[in-house]
């Protein structure tokens, strides 16, 4: 038995508390150390599991022994991919810092708290602690928007928390129902999975739909996505990076869980895939009417999450693993995009694509990093997005035939639109906007780190596929 997962949780929580307790000046260093240690541990796990060719890790710490609930943690290949993504995104966010440099102490503490919750959630083998980590993450990000966000932050954060609490309550209800209806009366995911077929069909369907709606809010998916554009637009740069990069993956990971837990899922796969595909195309259309570049990127999250759900609903190993890879690729890429847009806003004082012109001539690193990010989102080969697209659509085509490739139309539209954005605001240097601020070396290091990870896992996909048991 290892203690590595526990150590990751311990260090991130400890760093978060230390930041709160100590001075503002020390906050960034502590945050860097905390998230750096977590990243180092994930890389250690990555290297050892690549050498072994397999990955499976379990840890257990006593928690509420009266109710037979313990802190059960495990790393499967898929959850490890997400933990690695969390570590990379959080480290990138801490390293880049907020270009505005406001309330760094609160920001760093919240990032580390969120990292703690995300790692706990992806590593949890128990629905009870899954729910606890879920809520810690949501609350951390609520404060991230509410305290650190931009002008309209109150509205956006309240909207966010209302949707998320709605989701949480459904999730809690679902978890309670699982506890009462499974014969084993347990929160353990493994035990539930093996006992799920004994739950009567109607109940199973009800639980599935309850949890599906909860995760759907979080992902988000078409009818329940309204919180996302506002929350992403109003959050601080680091907040959007975590929100889109990691928080939306909570829902997607939950989807993966319920699709593997309940046998009923196979009968609902086609309607769910239809909904997800519709959500993709729908938000591609909505994206095309946006002028705020941050909002454009926020909507691409909905598109990508729709594609990921199609892959999950395909319910084959390509789809499932492709979904995990896509979550990884999307998390890093979207964090890069939000970082560049945040810096662009800081530099030019605007992020309206009709106003900002010629970013590459006045802020070259920001401009070209954004372009790289767009390459990543549109799945250009040698970025991680390409491998994800290949895996996902092989899975989708195997499950749904040619119709499985239709969400690519959404990707096509978003690609065309993103190139339009690049063209108008980044490349066209006639009468460029004048910079009013400059970004420091930290932000450029952040670009380099996120871009490097995006390319590393795109050029060497075996790093994430080497330990997979497909």
């Amino acid at each position, binding site marked *: 038995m290892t203690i590595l997962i526990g150590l990751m949780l311990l260090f991130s929580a400890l760093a978060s508390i230390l930041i709160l307790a100590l001075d503002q000046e020390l906050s960034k260093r502590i945050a860097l150390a905390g998230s750096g240690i977590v990243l180092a541990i994930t890389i250690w796990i990555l290297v050892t599991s690549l050498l072994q060719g397999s990955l499976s890790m379990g840890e257990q710490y006593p928690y509420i022994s009266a109710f037979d609930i313990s802190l059960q943690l495990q790393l499967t290949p898929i959850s490890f991919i997400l933990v690695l993504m969390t570590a990379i995104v959080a480290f990138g966010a801490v390293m880049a810092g907020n270009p505005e440099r406001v309330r760094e102490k609160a920001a760093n503490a919240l990032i580390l708290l969120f990292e703690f919750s995300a790692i706990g959630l992806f590593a949890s083998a128990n629905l009870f602690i899954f729910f606890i980590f879920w809520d810690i993450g949501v609350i951390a990000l609520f404060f991230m928007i509410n305290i650190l966000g931009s002008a309209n932050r109150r509205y956006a954060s309240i909207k966010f928390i*209302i949707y998320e609490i709605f989701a949480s309550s459904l999730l809690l209800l679902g978890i309670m129902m699982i506890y009462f209806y499974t014969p084993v009366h347990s929160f353990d995911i493994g035990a539930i999975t093996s006992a799920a077929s004994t739950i009567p069909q109607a109940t199973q369907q009800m639980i599935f739909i309850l949890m599906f709606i909860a995760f759907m809010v979080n992902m988000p998916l078409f009818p329940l996505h*309204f919180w996302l554009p506002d929350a992403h637009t109003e959050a601080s740069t680091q907040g959007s990076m975590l929100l889109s990069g990691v928080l939306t993956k909570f829902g997607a990971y939950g989807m993966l869980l319920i699709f593997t837990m309940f046998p009923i899922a196979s009968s609902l796969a086609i309607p769910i895939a239809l909904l997800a595909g519709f959500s993709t195309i*729908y938000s591609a*259309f*909505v994206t*095309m*009417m946006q002028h705020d570049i941050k909002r454009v990127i926020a909507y691409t999250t909905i598109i990508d999450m729709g594609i990921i759900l199609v892959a999950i609903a395909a319910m084959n*190993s*390509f789809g499932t*693993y492709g979904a995990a890879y896509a979550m990884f690729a999307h998390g890093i890429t979207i964090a890069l995009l939000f970082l560049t847009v945040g810096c662009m806003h800081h530099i030019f004082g605007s992020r309206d694509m009709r106003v900002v012109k*010629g970013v*590459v*001539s006045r802020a070259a690193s920001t401009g070209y990093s954004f372009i790289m990010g767009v*390459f990543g989102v*549109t*799945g*250009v*080969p*040698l970025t991680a997005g390409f*491998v994800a*697209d*290949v*895996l996902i*659509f*092989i899975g989708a*085509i*195997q499950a749904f035939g*040619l119709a499985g*490739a239709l969400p*690519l*139309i959404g*990707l*096509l*539209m978003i*690609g*065309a639109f993103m*190139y*339009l954005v690049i*063209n*108008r605001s980044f*490349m*066209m*240097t*006639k009468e460029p906007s004048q910079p009013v601020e400059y970004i420091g070396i930290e932000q450029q290091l952040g670009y380099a780190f996120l871009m490097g990870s995006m390319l590393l896992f795109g050029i*060497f*996909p*075996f790093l994430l*596929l*080497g330990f*997979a048991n*497909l």
Partner: protein
Amino acid sequence: MLALLVIVPLVVAAFLAVILRSRTTLVRYVALGASVISLLIAVALLLTSSNMVQQFIWFNVGQYAVHISTTTAPINLMLLLIVAGITPLIFAYSIGYLKTPSEQGRYYFEMCIFAASMMLFSISANFISLFIAWEMLGITSYLLIGFWQYKPKAQLAARKAITTIIIGDVAMLIAMLLIWSTYHTFEFLALYSAAATPALYAAMLLIAVAAFTKSAQFPFTEWLADAMEGPTPVSAFLHSSTMVKAGVFLILILAPIYTNLHILNLFVIFGIVSALVGAMNALAEHHIKRILAYSTIEDLALMFIAIGFNALYAAVLLFIVQAFYKALLFMSAGSIMTAGDDEEDLFESFNSTKNRGLFITMVIGTLSLAGIFPMSGFFGKAAIDSVAANFSSLPNIILYVLLSVVDLLSSIYIFRWLFVPMRKAPLEKAFTLNINYRTLPKSMLIPPTILAAFVIIGSVFYVTLTNLLPLGGLPVSIGVSDTVVETILVLAGLAIAYLLYVKMRLSGFTEKHEVLRGAFNSGAEINVLYNYFAAFVMLSANVVWRFDHYIDRLLYYSGMGLVEIGNRLRRLQNGQTNLYVAAFMLGLLALILLFAL
């Protein structure tokens, strides 16, 4: 793995170009040196290996492996040598052409990446390595078309190019994944013998779409004409001799599959439409490079027609010779533009005879494109005509007539392109113009001369191609009658162009006298088509967005409504006793009244 060596120097040079971007002269020679090394490696590949498919695993997915595989089959080596041969010439030409110091690093980075991905494309033996190269071609093309970032027109052109190309990219991705899902392989070789299934039909049609977008065939023609906003070496390299031919090449190597599926005729139909569009627009156009761009569309269309007849040798012959004469013509156009201070209008360009070397190479290129006998272009075009000369059925006859029209038109427009800049300049321009022509840098004159030599030598491919390349399909054979018909058409075109543009210039020939322009300018209509499509998409987007917005507002106001109801109801418990008493009394009164009545 060995074949991949060929791209290494260029990739290294690309990153060196970024690192050394402040040392502008060094960057040029680094790129040139790297391209020469690549050429040497390509030649070494030709001499040492024969038809090897090499694979290495890129990544494993469960029990399946995804390979990057390369091949040194003769046809792949042919494209590799064309690309590797033209690259140093283009880089040499760029030394004289592109002088702005601040642009050097970016230019050579993008050009080296482009050249590397084109080489990867030419040696790829499966869909994965092909798709990597395919996307990189699209992106570098986008970046290079919009290279001059201060030119808004260049940016619009780049946007149009990437929007078209991305359609092809997605079609290609769907096609390759469909093929994998059905046959569990990405290798071309394994697909040649694959059984026909509906999935294969769908995939092959999608690949045809992808090829049409890349090779600018109808209805995706317009991006190529707009792409001429980029620097001239880019046009000479990407948009005439290499990148746009990726689509043709792809169909060429997949032709056996199309033959199995019996859908080769598709290429004849789209080819003839594109050829007409290209030839007519070339005649209507005034922009010195756009004429050549439309001409490129026509050339590519002729190659597709040849493939459609399963005359692969004829297609390959034109494929090879077109690369030389089109690159040559573009370089000449760039020289004329440089001499005329970036004057792009054909009718504002003068005195092209003042530089003998330039003029002679221009004549050689023109004669080759038109198809005058000993030039290599003649063999390329006559081969395709001879394939089409099959009068067994009415469609074939119509096709032959249309092809003859295309030949005639192309002869007219290319001689127009040659004759119009020959005119004497007005006095106020002549002095600087003559100086500019005489001081054209050597680096802009030597590469076209080398290409001119290739244009003339290229004729030998007509004889040797069958021995060099083992291909399926019909052999090339140009009969006497084909030669006669082709020569008559070309001479007729020459005569018409002479009458229109040399004789009539004495009477002050200007734009408004040009009767052909309005009749042939179909590029504008195709653009209108694009605009309608874009407007349709944006309209749908608007409808969907409004829906989204209204739902969001509805939710917001219903939330606000709940808050408002709460606010109103709050008065019920505000603690003011007098109000409670008043309410109580009113209620009591109402009760009494109720019971009393």
